[in-house]
């Protein structure tokens, strides 16, 4: 009679148990690494969009703004107010451009027609303030906003978020 070379049932059960113990550990490790990498990717997107928006706002203010208007001129010596709707005016006193948020997208322009961010992120807490240190100094503008990654709420990960705040001295 020829002896058949094979694994016994016991050997198979033991190896299956070992695999069953090791596999979840390996899978959990891989999962947590992938999850963190995704978080870094989201954070990079938030930073990229926030930086681009901030640099465009700075350029616009430096080249086109002379003062900031709400109901009246906001740039004065009094402590800055938190008016939601503000418009930058140029040296001639004409409306130049404004900043606004629509559905989480940061908008800019005379009629808020240009988007500074895309739908991957949500912008909140937009605040445009202006102040003069004294009557004869140039106005100092503060633009601040929060950029948050736009993804369905997850129980595991918080969507990455960054506060942006910049200070620009209007020279015109």
């Amino acid at each position: 009679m020829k002896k058949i070379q094979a694994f016994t049932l016991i050997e198979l059960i033991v190896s299956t148990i070992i695999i069953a113990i090791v596999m979840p550990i390996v899978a959990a490790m891989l999962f947590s690494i992938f999850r963190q990498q995704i978080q870094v990717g989201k954070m990079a997107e938030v930073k990229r969009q926030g930086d681009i928006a901030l640099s465009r706002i700075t350029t616009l203010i430096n080249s086109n703004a002379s003062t900031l208007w709400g109901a009246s001129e906001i740039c004065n010596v009094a402590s800055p107010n938190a008016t939601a709707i503000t418009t930058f005016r140029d040296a001639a006193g004409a409306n130049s451009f404004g900043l606004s948020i629509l559905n989480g997208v940061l908008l800019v322009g005379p009629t808020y027609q240009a988007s500074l961010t895309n739908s991957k992120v949500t912008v909140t807490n937009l605040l445009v303030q202006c102040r003069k240190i004294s009557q004869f100094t140039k106005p100092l503008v503060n633009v601040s906003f929060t950029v948050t990654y736009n993804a369905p709420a997850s129980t595991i990960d918080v969507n990455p978020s960054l506060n942006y705040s910049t200070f620009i001295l209007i020279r015109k």
Partner: protein
Amino acid sequence: MMHDKLKMINQKLSNKSGGFTIVEVLIFVAISSIVLVSVISLSVTITRQTYINIHKFYATRYADELAEWLRAQKELDWQGFHNTVRLYGTSFTRCVNTAITLTDSLNILSTSPCPYTGITTSPQISPQIYSRTVRFTKIDNSQVDTLSNSQPIKAQIVVAWLEIGGTPYNVTIETLLAPR
């Protein structure tokens, strides 16, 4: 006779145990432990590096924010800015762990030590592990006491933080502040 001989050979073959030798087992254990240790250490390194990367995003923003504010302050009033810096000799470090608002003046540059308590911003979204300092250095020391000093001042902004285990990391930017 012939039959018995065959039977004996057969018995001899089937009695030969088919297990691993001790050398084989040792080699297997050695190889698998090397692989396992390297895989685990690699995943620990990746995890740690990921946290450092995320923290660096916040730190860079804080450093940029202070640099932009300092630039606006010196453009607003160079003489006042210079005089404040001039009061403290040729080089000094100040702590700015608070969030900067529009009403803040150079008085927020704190002389107290800079703990890793985080930059207080609203809304609170970053981990509270940062310390933000700025070090001013005058480029030309020969003009230290001249009020009408037009020499630029170097500002070195350091946002430092501690990772788990107490390893310090920092993001450093330098900006040259000169009269316009």
